[in-house]
């Protein structure tokens, strides 16, 4: 792993009490490889490594750590700082319902996450409502209806109803019944599909979501930067949900998405069941990314 590789470098360079530009540069080549292996976008890696270099050089090696451990610590701390705080407290709207909208690529986990969020808020004593606004994928509405029924959460959306009409009706229903938050599930779409991005903008104009969440698969590779950047520019993102973290993907896409959008990661998906949603812990993801 990274620590062992760095240890080898410092052993060879001769341990001294100070991290010099030379020994840190060599160490950072290893760090770069580790981050790329972890799927962090190569441009994000470049910026990150520069920051670590600036932060590490000239540092006195702490008495308790070897130089290798010191570099790992600087890298880890820098990662934690960049990944940001745990943003899972989605602020309630001043006037209910609070509207949460889920967007993202096909298969990223939006529908499942919508149900997980509904369960999350139910366990907190709230009364959420779901909108099944994916009218494209066969049985997408059935999928959310089934999950909603399991949770005792109402689901709005009839076959043949347009996505915009579903969202509008769901909002009216939420307001009328005093239900909050309203969680909108949308169809998966490409970040380069202009008409589908326009649909998201139309929904956004219609129901004014307070939180637009980009749902990102933790195994996403270099393309995460393009996806996040395009969705953010086309629709605007407030926070991110990183799914399928119960696998062994290192999750570097999270750093890419955070870097390019500046938005916090609110939640992580850790399984297929509706209880598998956790608040984001930057330190845990940092360790995972470093391998």
């Amino acid at each position, binding site marked *: 792993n990274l620590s062992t590789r760095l240890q080898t470098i410092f052993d060879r360079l001769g341990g001294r009490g100070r991290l010099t530009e030379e020994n840190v540069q060599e160490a950072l080549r290893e760090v*770069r*490889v580790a981050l*790329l*292996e*972890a*799927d962090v*976008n*190569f441009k994000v890696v470049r910026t990150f490594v520069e920051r670590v270099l600036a932060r590490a050089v000239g540092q006195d090696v702490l008495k308790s750590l070897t130089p290798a451990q010191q570099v790992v610590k600087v890298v880890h701390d820098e990662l934690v700082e960049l990944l940001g705080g745990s943003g899972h407290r989605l602020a309630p709207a001043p006037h209910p319902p609070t509207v949460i909208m889920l967007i993202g*690529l*096909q*298969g*990223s*986990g939006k529908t499942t996450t919508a149900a997980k969020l509904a369960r999350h808020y139910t366990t907190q004593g709230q009364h959420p409502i779901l909108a099944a606004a994916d009218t*494209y*994928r*066969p*049985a*997408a509405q*059935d*999928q*959310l*209806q*089934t*999950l909603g029924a*399991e949770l005792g959460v109402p689901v709005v959306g009839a076959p043949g109803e347009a996505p915009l009409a579903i969202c509008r009706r769901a909002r009216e229903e939420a307001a009328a019944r005093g239900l909050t938050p309203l969680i909108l599930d949308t169809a998966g779409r*490409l*970040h*380069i599909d202009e008409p589908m991005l326009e649909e998201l903008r139309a929904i956004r104009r219609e129901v004014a979501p307070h939180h637009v969440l980009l749902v990102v*698969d933790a*195994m*996403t*590779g*270099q*393309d*995460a930067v*393009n*996806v996040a950047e395009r969705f953010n520019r086309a629709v605007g993102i407030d926070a991110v949900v990183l799914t*399928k973290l*119960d*696998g*062994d*993907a*290192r999750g*570097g*896409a999270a750093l890419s998405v955070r870097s390019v959008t500046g938005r916090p990661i609110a939640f992580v998906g850790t399984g*297929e069941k509706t209880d598998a949603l956790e608040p984001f812990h930057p330190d845990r993801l940092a360790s995972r990314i470093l391998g």
Partner: protein
Amino acid sequence: LASERPIDDALWEELEELLIAADLGAALAADFANRAREEVMFGTVTRAAELRPLFRRFLLDALAPAAQPLDLDHRPAVVLMLGVNGSGKTTTCAKLAAQLRAGGKSVLLAAADTFRAAAIEQLQRWGERIGVEVVHQAAGSDPAAVVFDAVKAAAARSLDVLIVDTAGRLHTKSNLMDELAKLRRVIARQLPGAPHEALMVLDATTGQNGFAQARVFHEAIALTGVCLTKLDGTARGGIVVRIVRELTLPIKLIGVGERLEDLQAFDPAAFVDALVP
């Protein structure tokens, strides 16, 4: 000639980053760059303009052998579709069924994802749309029972192709991998030689984890190939280069959209041109 670009560190970095950006991975990108450097050292390449074609040639050499057609020369030919959650298995089953049917084959689908909400309905909707029967049981039933019934029906009716859709599963979940191995055994026991295709459906947006997926699925059930989906996005799916090189797995199909016609044979030349434009 004065305006020609030099072959310098900046160019090597740019070319390597092109491969990394396509998800080939740092190690493989460095490997190809080193081979290219050798060509420059030996003088077989002297101009910067020759480097991209050189990289394309390396990639084509690596990928051309991977382009193999589906082995459907059996009656019934059984295709098992598998892979991690959300990769595009169900949609690929529908696409393949539609295309084979359009080609005059008799096709049967099996809804062996009995776990996920509305998974059976999703395949049934597709089946209705394309006029292909979907063997299914109640949600929550044993996938092995569905597979057993489907193979029995396909054989009894002398159908041309049976396509089995399975539940998404992360390769890290050993109990789910065991279940998949069991499904394969059920098929093999009923029909020696089957499944004739065990295809891992891989999302082209997947990074380095795609290799772990292929390795583990291959160890668990002996894959016959990979179907790379969502190539209509901006991800290039370069992780398949590593999969082909290290696991010698064929790439049999690519998904290029959400419609029934958006399934194509793997074309190495087109793929390489997209990787290194």
